[in-house]
């Protein structure tokens, strides 16, 4: 008894016993977290109480989906793990779109959700949802903590799983009684993940085989995806392309991993990729895929994809290899190390014939738009932004036509410079993503190139940007339509624009009402000045560009067609 009271009097010993909520906050801080996104609610009150004084930059979105996209883009822009906290039931359900977006693009995120008391689980309690059941297919891993003893270890495991291997979102469900249960914290908990094995180092013999194949290839193409950005391997990629004298094409997720202003850049490939990239892939005798997954938007018709090519596939996820196409030389592991070895092994080959052919395609079919058009063309706005920002802005997008034009008319030169929902194609990603990216990179010029209807989906996050005085710039390429849907309706549904036109608000007024700067641009002559004014703002700024309504994205590989069967090439030819 005496002993006990003396122990309680010692502050050092006393401070080790803490409630679960404090364990969570302390573990996050120990893991190096300084920024958290989250929205409060009934069962996360104990947790949010511990954030009241925590040394953490806490951003509250206006909707959990927005918060999830912010955490996601924060991770994309910084390379760190993004964290989103939500309450049980509706809060957790609102994360689904954001988690699926992060899952498809392999983004390291940890979502913490509140849950009803463990003794109420399964009783249809107020704000109860089967969160782990609902989010299982859209997370890399998820679990519920039912014993306070597992809490700290589970948070550490979530971080480890989210950020290693092929990254992805991990969700931890936290019943409210676990948040308040007391535990004596000892030394940091050890991970217990017997089923999580990482293969990071590429097999030496496979790498040698790949190098030999590259040296022997007459018409090789490097086909690079987001894996190179995740792996921080842009430098190694540049060395490989230089040492081996290789042309490089990028997927949407790969944009930024290779400097597109280089001569050997073929820009993006795929459905709305460059004609020269698509022709090069179809003619290549060796396709070297790095951190990409042969998505249908990239390959077009699979059975006629790169018909003359042997395929090398470098990927950290064994399940990506030979999933869609047969791979001749697989290399499983982390791109950085593998590319470093490859860059040393390959030798400079004279490929002047191949590069001459590529130059010809480049000359014949560049991305182009009608310079003489009197109205504002969306491509022109992006072109002008590229000039005014000298190619240095961090560009974020929604999903649709504007997103494709942002890949075609802005050239990216460094990793994490282009942030976009690739796999899931989530409309509404742009604004919250701009907020997340700006928080990750306070010094960067962050521009959200958005569509009117993409913007409509999450525009309630504008006050979040205003509250935190983030100098984000939103450029709405406003054509009144859900542009990509309209384009498909024009091309494949006889111009029957079914339900793809909606009445929009006056965005400048909306912006001003929310405390941001708002502008409307109606004439082409005003575009350069408007962009300059926008770039000079220190507060969030929304510019509504009233663009030509029925402009299409070209070239286009219609679904089911081969990559070299592109529509719109005659148009591009005429425009040069």
């Amino acid at each position, binding site marked *: 008894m005496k002993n006990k009271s003396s122990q309680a009097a010692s502050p050092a010993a006393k401070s080790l016993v803490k409630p679960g909520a404090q364990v969570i906050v302390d573990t996050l801080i120990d893991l190096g977290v300084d920024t958290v996104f989250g929205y409060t609610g009934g069962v996360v009150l104990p947790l949010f109480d511990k954030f009241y004084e925590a040394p953490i930059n806490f951003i509250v979105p206006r909707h959990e989906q927005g918060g999830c996209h912010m955490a996601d883009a924060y991770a994309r822009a910084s390379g760190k793990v993004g964290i989103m906290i939500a309450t049980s039931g509706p809060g957790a359900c609102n994360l689904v779109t954001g988690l699926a977006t992060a899952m498809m693009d392999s983004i390291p995120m940890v979502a913490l959700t509140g849950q009803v008391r463990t003794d109420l689980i399964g009783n249809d309690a107020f704000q109860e949802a089967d969160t*782990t*059941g609902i989010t*299982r*297919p859209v997370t*890399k*891993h998820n*679990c*519920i903590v039912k014993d306070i003893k597992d809490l700290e270890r589970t948070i550490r495991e979530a971080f480890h*799983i989210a950020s290693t291997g092929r990254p992805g979102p991990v969700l931890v469900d936290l019943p409210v009684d676990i948040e308040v249960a007391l535990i004596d914290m000892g030394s940091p908990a050890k991970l217990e*993940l*017997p*089923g*999580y094995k990482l293969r990071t180092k590429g097999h030496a013999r496979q790498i040698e085989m790949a190098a030999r194949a590259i040296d022997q290839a007459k018409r090789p193409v490097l086909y690079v995806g987001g894996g190179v950005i995740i792996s921080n391997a842009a430098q190694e990629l540049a060395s490989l392309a230089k040492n081996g004298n290789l042309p490089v094409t990028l997927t949407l997720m790969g944009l930024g991993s290779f400097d597109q202003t280089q001569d050997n850049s073929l820009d993006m490939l795929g459905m709305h990729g460059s004609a020269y990239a698509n022709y090069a892939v179809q003619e290549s005798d060796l396709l070297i895929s790095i951190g990409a997954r042969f998505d249908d938007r990239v390959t077009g018709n699979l059975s006629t994809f790169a018909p003359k090519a042997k395929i090398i596939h470098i990927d950290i*996820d*064994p*399940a990506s290899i*030979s*999933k869609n196409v047969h791979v001749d030389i697989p290399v499983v592991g982390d791109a950085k190390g593998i590319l470093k070895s490859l860059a040393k092994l390959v030798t400079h080959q004279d490929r002047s014939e191949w590069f001459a052919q590529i130059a010809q395609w480049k000359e014949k079919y560049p991305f182009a738009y009608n310079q003489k058009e009197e109205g504002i063309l969306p491509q022109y706005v992006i072109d002008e932004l590229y000039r005014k920002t000298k190619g240095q802005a961090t560009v974020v997008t929604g999903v649709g036509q504007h997103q494709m034009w942002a890949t075609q008319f802005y050239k990216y030169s460094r990793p994490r410079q282009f942030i976009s929902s690739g796999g899931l194609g989530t409309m509404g990603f742009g604004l919250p993503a701009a907020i997340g990216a700006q928080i990750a990179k306070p010094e960067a010029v962050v521009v959200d190139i958005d569509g009117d209807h993409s913007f409509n989906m999450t525009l309630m996050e504008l006050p979040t940007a205003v509250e935190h005085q983030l100098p984000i710039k939103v450029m709405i390429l406003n054509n009144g339509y859900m542009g990509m849907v309209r384009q498909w309706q024009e091309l494949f549904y006889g111009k029957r624009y079914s339900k793809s036109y909606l009445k929009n608000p006056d965005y400048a007024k909306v912006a001003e009402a929310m405390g941001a700067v708002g502008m409307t641009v109606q004439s082409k002559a005003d575009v350069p000045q408007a962009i300059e004014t926008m770039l000079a703002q220190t507060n969030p700024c929304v510019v509504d560009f009233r663009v030509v309504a029925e402009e299409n994205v070209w070239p286009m590989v219609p679904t089911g067609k081969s990559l070299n069967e592109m529509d719109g090439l005659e148009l591009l030819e005429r425009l040069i």
Partner: protein
Amino acid sequence: MKHIINALVENKPGVLAHVAGMFAARSFNIDSLVVGCTEDPKLSRMTIVVVGDDRVVEQVRKQLAKIIPVVKVQDYVGKPVVARNLMLISVAAPPEKRPEILALIEMFRARVVDIGKKSLMIEVSGPESKIEGFIDVCRPYGIKSLARTGTIAMPRRSKAE
């Protein structure tokens, strides 16, 4: 082709849902799935019979291995294994037919586990082909009800131990 896939998984709630969900989400067909505990209380063994060409089964194997609580995945195809199913089958058996049925039971090394006035409940175990064979021979007498497990399997040792 039929593949018997063996997955050692952590004995935690939600693992079965995760595995089943993955199969559904990726349109893989499960022929049978059996879960049970192992000699290690922390681990369970799932034996999953999958029908598909090599590419599909390779994806099944890889996608299974990706699930965090899945510790180890093995495809038993082409390996010598002992594979067994268990069936309980209730067959109409009026007294005059019983000698015939009992002879069949003898032949299949099955066992009578319950006797009713008009029927017999029989327990049979063995490879799938034997189970199917026994169902075929019982059919003419009238099958009242039938319950069977999926396959469980274990690789044979190359030498006697």
